[in-house]
């Protein structure tokens, strides 16, 4: 079997070049590939197009890559909570393409399923529909949306094995499985890397066929963006 295990994030991302298109898993700060983001900053690759539901916060997640001016374009559904993002956007230093969250997820899924495009009703009759082909099926209008074409998908899982199989934890799953399927090259960073055979095949969320490189992250901060709690009675 091809050895998919790499020693660390630096090795995993070593051939990511300026100007490439990356998918980055996560929803808010939940389930983001923290170690690869840190390695991309260390490597200093620039002019990146990042497909990710959000753009992190000022000092964490993709926000860190914005600060170092490595991102040319963000393709996201929601980009609040980030002052540096706002500043770069208003100054014309950053391109942003906002697309509906379900369209974002399904354009990833389509790439992973080998389908060139999808039809979705999201955005019909709005500015999102401008310039897009519309088709009517059974009396309802749908927009033609293209599958994403990303050079690399970078995902984060809870557990992974040396064959590249992945298991996510809780809602940190989010965009990771669809993106893992969609990358020309998929890098998975995991909290726990185990030997092939240690994971129950019935419990695998992402089969190893989609994962080209895997490593155990050196450390995880797993920051909480919006801590909400109840007080004990």
């Amino acid at each position: 079997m091809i050895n998919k295990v790499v020693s660390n994030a630096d090795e995993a991302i070593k051939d990511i070049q300026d100007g490439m298109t990356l998918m980055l898993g996560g929803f808010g700060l939940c389930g983001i590939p923290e170690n690869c983001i840190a390695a991309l900053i260390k490597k200093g690759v620039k002019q990146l197009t990042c497909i990710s539901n959000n753009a992190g916060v000022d000092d964490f997640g993709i926000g860190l890559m914005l600060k170092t001016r490595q991102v040319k374009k963000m393709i996201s559904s929601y980009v609040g909570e980030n002052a540096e993002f706002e500043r770069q956007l208003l100054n014309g230093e950053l391109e942003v393409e906002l697309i509906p969250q379900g369209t974002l997820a399904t354009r990833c899924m389509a790439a992973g399923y080998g389908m060139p495009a999808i039809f979705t009703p999201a955005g019909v009759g709005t500015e999102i529909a401008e310039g897009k082909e519309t088709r009517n099926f059974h009396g309802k209008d749908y927009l033609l949306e293209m599958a994403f074409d990303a050079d690399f998908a970078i995902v984060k899982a809870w557990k992974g094995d040396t064959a590249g199989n992945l298991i996510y934890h809780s809602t940190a799953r989010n965009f990771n499985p669809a993106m893992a399927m969609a990358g020309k090259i998929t890098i998975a960073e995991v909290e726990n890397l185990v030997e092939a055979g240690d994971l129950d095949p019935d419990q695998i969320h992402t089969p190893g066929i989609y994962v080209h490189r895997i490593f155990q992250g050196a450390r995880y901060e797993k920051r909480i963006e919006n801590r909400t709690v109840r007080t004990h009675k």
Partner: protein
Amino acid sequence: MLDKDGIAKRIAKEIQDGYYVNLGIGIPTLVANYIPDGIQVVLQSENGLLGMGPFPFEGEESPDLINAGKQTITTLPGSSIFDSAESFGMIRAQKVDLTILGAMEVSENGDIANWKIPGKMVKGMGGAMDLVASAKNIIVAMQHVNKAGESKLLPTCTLPLTGVRCVKKIVTELGVFEIHPLGGFKLLERAPGISVDQIKNATAGKLIIDSDIPEMAV
């Protein structure tokens, strides 16, 4: 007149036993606090969870378990977790019975605007466009007028649209309204202490008043 909790409480009465419900951010989130006794509801969070529970007790929060508002939450017995593509698949396929969300404007044919104000920083539509394009039943929870005192129930929306001809019902601090199939806000109920004239004065779109309008029981 209803306060925000009053609006939430009134909307909660629309929920039926066994419903799968998606709650937007703001007043809709409060609806979870007023689900009538004896009714089983499963809350969908579009980041990939069915069966959203209350906030965790202090010290028990997990960075891996959040809702679509990025708040730390809990699961419940019977909860399930799935990925974002599947989450919007079940939304698109109309498996979710009811969507409750906020709005900046609603037009008399059921168009909704709630994501963008020209000239202001646009944060994005998140899942709102997907939800309104597919949901079989959409109730809007919002204030009847904006901060400038202008009606948010309009002949046509002035702000960029989130979706067209999709809103079924609106609950504001003044009353309950149904979008008439031929266009217009059909007044169904008045909020406690609110007169039909007060509602007329606050509504810029076509208001349909068919009969005596009852005061709602909250």
